[in-house]
């Protein structure tokens, strides 16, 4: 198998799996218990929490809670903040390129709870239009949620500029979904009021995510119960997953330091090969995350090519599974002003530290053959 779908998920690092198993085996106590065994678990949980905060260099002002996923962390922000601060205003700003775990909760906030949501348009390169963002801002905005790295194209948003603009409005908090950014690009994490990420994309285990937030920020919680995680996220803690997240982040950050050049070289190599194929266009830019490359097929159907590659043991992704009920289009590519053909037929290639040049060669070879062989039925 040649796996080039790391934006979807990655294999857990050995070190993270080992941590996960060991905690479950030898420290299965409930961190809320009052006996010594519970206390041991509690220590591990707090070690993971402070460990992650210090890896991200935000240990002083920030706090972290463990969630079941980035989706849950996003929901907590997008619902918990407006509910808490609705007396300050009722407008939320996001972008047209966000993940569904941002867009759909905001639709609920709009349709069910009467909040106003404004969408910042994307530029041709997939980044948000900063001028448009600036002009959308106002005193009634209580929350800005704009992602770090786009999951379809790899475009990196101008986060420090967004943060600077948002800070002019003291009633507004700035949140960023950093699922595709964390451990993949260098960032100053102190610029956010809140950010969320998921564990399984950085070599942790599935079913685990984090929300980091400035201690001054308050939320209405979505899950009430035993008051775990500072009362913001009730439910018995999954210490093993949380600890695995810590180990995975440590591993991935040291790999980033060590192999960043290698990833950029791989990406540049991939671009050079892709540029030789006439019937595709590249949607990503070299300013974006080197881990993600999005292309569009000008002649073929992406779902067919993805299936053909899959039959050859190569995993990449398209917009979504092929469907007989009308082909879905990528709203991200549409927002970037791509043609309908391009928006309907994207393929995303996402690599990891373990990807090799040989794997990319095989991918290019098979892709080229399939593009030639398959008819546009």
């Amino acid at each position, binding site marked *: 198998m040649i796996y080039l779908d790391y934006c979807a998920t990655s294999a857990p690092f050995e070190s993270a799996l080992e941590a996960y198993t060991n905690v479950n085996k030898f420290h299965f106590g409930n961190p809320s218990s009052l006996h010594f065994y519970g206390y041991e678990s509690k220590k591990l949980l707090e070690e993971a929490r402070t460990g992650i905060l210090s890896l991200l260099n935000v240990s002083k002002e920030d706090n972290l809670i463990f969630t079941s996923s980035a989706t849950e962390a996003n929901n907590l922000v997008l619902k918990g903040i407006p509910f808490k601060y609705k007396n300050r205003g009722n407008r939320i700003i996001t972008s047209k390129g966000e993940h569904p775990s941002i867009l759909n909760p905001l639709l609920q906030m709009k349709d069910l709870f009467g909040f106003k949501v404004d969408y910042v348009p994307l530029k041709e390169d997939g980044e948000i239009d900063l001028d448009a963002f600036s002009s959308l801002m106002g005193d009634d905005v209580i929350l800005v949620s704009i992602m770090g790295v786009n999951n379809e194209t790899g475009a990196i948003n101008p986060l420090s500029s967004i943060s600077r603009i948002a800070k002019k409005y003291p009633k507004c908090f700035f949140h960023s979904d950093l699922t595709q950014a964390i451990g993949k690009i260098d960032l100053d994490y102190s610029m956010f009021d809140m950010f969320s990420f998921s564990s399984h994309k950085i070599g942790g285990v599935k079913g685990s995510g984090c929300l980091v937030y400035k201690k001054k920020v308050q939320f209405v919680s979505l899950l009430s119960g035993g008051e775990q995680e500072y009362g913001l996220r009730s439910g018995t803690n999954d210490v093993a997953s949380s600890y695995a997240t810590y180990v995975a982040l440590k591993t991935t950050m040291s790999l980033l330091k060590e192999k960043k050049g290698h990833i950029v070289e791989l990406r540049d190599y991939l671009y050079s090969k892709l540029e030789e194929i006439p019937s595709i266009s590249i949607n990503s830019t070299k300013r974006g995350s080197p881990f993600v490359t999005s292309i569009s097929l000008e002649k073929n159907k992406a*779902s*067919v*090519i993805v*299936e*053909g*590659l*899959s*039959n050859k043991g190569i995993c990449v992704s398209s917009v979504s*599974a*092929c*469907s*007989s*009920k009308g082909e879905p289009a990528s709203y991200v590519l549409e927002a970037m002003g791509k043609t309908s053909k391009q928006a309907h037929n994207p393929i995303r290639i996402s690599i990891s530290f373990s990807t090799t040049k040989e794997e990319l060669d095989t991918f290019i070879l098979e892709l080229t053959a*399939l593009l030639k062989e*398959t*008819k546009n*039925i």
Partner: protein
Amino acid sequence: MNDSYLMVHYGELSTKGDNRKLFIRCLHQNIRRALKKYEVETKSTRDHIYIYLVKDNLDEVVSRLQDISGIQKISLVEKSPLELDKLKEKALEMIKRENIKTFKVDSHKSERAFALSSYELNCTIGDYILDNVNGSKVDLHNPEGKLKILITDEAAYLSLHNYPGLGGYPLGMNGKVTLMLSGGIDSPVAAYSLIRRGIKVECLHFASPPYTSASVIDKLQDILKELNEFQMDIKLQIVPFTKLQEEIYECVPEPYCITIMRRMMVRIATEVAKRNKSLAIATGESIGQVASQTLESVQVINEVTNFPILRPLATMDKLSIIDISKKINTYEISIRPYEDCCTIFKPRRPKTKPRLDECKKYEEKFDYASLIEEAVDNLETIYIASED
């Protein structure tokens, strides 16, 4: 559960004259196989099959029997010796146990040696119950309990409860067909209708990777696992159809693509049916449902084979087909969204009245015969069987 039996009433097979023994043997075999894990004892006679329950598993056994074709109904019966006093006591015991106040007695005799006529037996048993159950009444039209008594040459069988069966013929008695299975809503229902009629079904699926998804095969296996309730082992053969489909796309004008594709499929199905010794081809077509299922299309497509094509859903409307697919638990699987060979070509204006001479003209443009041979030589076969 002592003295409790299930009595299986034969379906339409009771009209089958000389073949009767063969039919009963086949049904008995099917029942034994289906009930293997339930530890029951079975016995077949000219009129019924009796199932003696060793364990307290009535509901499970009845529910399994209700999926077996060739059974009209199933009665829960209790056995009594052929002595009037014991018969009366047994009848009274059953009525009392169920706390029945209004009742009717309905006797049948297959043994002439018994002293009383059916009518006399009804009256005698009825009187005995009236005398011994306070407040009991006979109601011939709408009784709470209908006590059926069957007198055979070795015992009497009394019953108060019946369960409907699937009807039809025992599976395997009416030969075997090759069914074209797409994975949509209709073809599994067609399979069910055929099985219910005692026809063994083997399935043929046309796959066009990479235009169709490999997940379709999982979907088909899930569908066939549901159908295993009715036919315990099902053979699925997968035809590699990509090359033919590409050729059709290259050589045939868009409105005729589906018609020609169906003609190719029927040609392949005919070859496979011959090799598998099937007696007919079957499809889930319903007249008029889509362009390739108008009578005009059916006629033009049918022209390529001299094999009979059974279309059990031909005159059914979509809603009735959906109802059955829900009943047999295939609906939710069928609506999973994957491409199949029929949904790849989506001509904007498919021919609803294709012409045979046009079809022949387009088919001359490519060497379909050798592509068909190649496809038939490279079938992949999967067997889907129920675990018990």
